[in-house]
């Protein structure tokens, strides 16, 4: 019997394998990843200093434990470079460490699942190459912690979910942080101005300098290795490390090369199936109704329903609205991002304790954001959908 092959060992890929194994003890499963295979919770990467954890301490399960628990074949550090969907097989590259050669091998599949994740959006900034880091994997994070050791000043480009969490985590742990974003307030796409202003003040308590409505034009490195970022508003920011947190792009290259239908992400139907009958996709590489949802909950739900489908019980994926918590030291915030831009925010509350509801033009609730004490209203809001 040919195995189910899962490309990618992030949360989506590993959760799918586990859900399949819970339903079927015998079905052969192979997980293949270009990175080392270790289970970790990616949202923790932007919180780990406050959690007092090193990169290694974020690992929940090592390869050996995963292999045992999933009863699966795990191939790490093995990129896949081609899918032959007529033959139902993939071509992979294994590194032979003994004589340091690349070896190509073919792996047949019964069903193929793309869980290839998303990559940081490259920054089209002069001087960015080699001087800007992105933290998108545990390996990136491990490297990042080495870089920031004994350093003081950090510049973050982007004030979205990841940028705000990093600003909070770094500044509350003794780093001097600057944040640049073209928006007018933090999390502009998902919270109204009043709440964004409160979040800005909360993070500022630990000493963050915000530079809104500006972009980085150029980055210059001096002889001592110190970086200066030249902003569009004329400001020059000095720092030791620059992080890019401007967002992710679904990793769709393999799907595109295979001729699968893609847009921003891999296009799937209600059963997580791509335009090819034996190839499925889930997690950050996918788009649902034209939107990518790079969060844990949609990937967990997709893994659960896809596992049922793959084990013979065809199950539609129902994506219920799932609020995302954002960890800001002085202002707990819960956000259910609006799924449309057409509409307006209605805000209630004072100071940090705010509830904000986003209604579309038909007066239907399309998203909400709660902060401070108002996060206790979560279930009330969810029941209004």
């Amino acid at each position, binding site marked *: 019997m040919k195995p189910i092959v899962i490309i990618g060992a992030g949360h989506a890929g590993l*959760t799918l394998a*586990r*859900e399949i194994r*819970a339903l079927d003890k015998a079905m052969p499963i192979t997980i293949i990843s270009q990175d080392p295979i270790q289970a970790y*919770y990616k*949202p923790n990467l932007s919180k780990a200093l406050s959690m007092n954890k090193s990169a290694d301490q974020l690992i*929940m399960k090592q390869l050996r434990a995963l292999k045992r628990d999933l009863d699966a074949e795990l191939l790490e550090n093995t990129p896949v470079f081609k899918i032959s969907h007529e033959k139902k097989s993939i071509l992979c590259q294994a590194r032979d460490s003994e004589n340091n050669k690349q070896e190509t091998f073919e792996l047949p599949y019964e069903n193929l699942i793309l869980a290839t994740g998303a990559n940081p959006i490259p920054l089209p900034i002069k001087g960015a190459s080699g001087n800007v880091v992105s933290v998108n994997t545990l390996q990136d994070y491990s490297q990042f912690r080495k870089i920031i050791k004994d350093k003081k000043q950090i510049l973050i480009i982007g004030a979205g979910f990841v940028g705000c969490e990093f600003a909070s985590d770094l500044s509350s742990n003794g780093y001097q942080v600057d944040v640049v974003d073209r928006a007018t307030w933090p999390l502009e796409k998902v919270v109204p101005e009043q709440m964004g202003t409160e979040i800005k003040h909360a993070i500022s308590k630990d000493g963050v300098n915000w530079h809104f409505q500006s972009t980085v034009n150029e980055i210059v490195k001096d002889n001592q290795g110190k970086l200066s970022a030249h902003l569009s508003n004329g400001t020059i920011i000095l720092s030791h490390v620059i992080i890019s947190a401007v967002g992710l792009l679904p990793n769709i290259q393999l799907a595109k090369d295979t001729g699968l239908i893609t847009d921003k992400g891999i296009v799937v139907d209600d059963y997580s199936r791509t335009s090819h009958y034996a190839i499925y996709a889930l997690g950050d590489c996918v788009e649902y109704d034209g939107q990518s949802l790079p*969060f*844990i*909950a949609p990937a*967990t*739900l997709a*893994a*659960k329903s896809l596992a049922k489908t793959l084990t013979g019980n065809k199950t539609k994926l129902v994506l219920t609205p*799932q609020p*995302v*918590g954002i960890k800001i030291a002085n202002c707990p915030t819960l956000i259910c991002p609006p799924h449309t831009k057409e509409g307006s925010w209605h805000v209630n509350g004072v100071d940090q304790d705010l509830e904000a509801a986003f209604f579309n033009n038909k007066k239907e609730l399309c998203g909400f954001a709660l902060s401070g004490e108002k996060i206790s209203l*979560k*279930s009330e809001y969810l029941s209004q959908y």
Partner: protein
Amino acid sequence: MNNSKIWQCSTCDFVYSEAAGIPEENIHPGTAWQDVPEDWLCPDCAMGKEDFDMHEV
């Protein structure tokens, strides 16, 4: 309820107590772990039920 158990999320340490349930999520006090819906996600970190470990009280 006899033999009430506590389950803890291995990712974020959120605790589910069978005795208490989570009334605001319509999981009534006294709901056994096996009766919590399969598609229920940890309210704090969005991992699934499989991520919880049992702790006897």
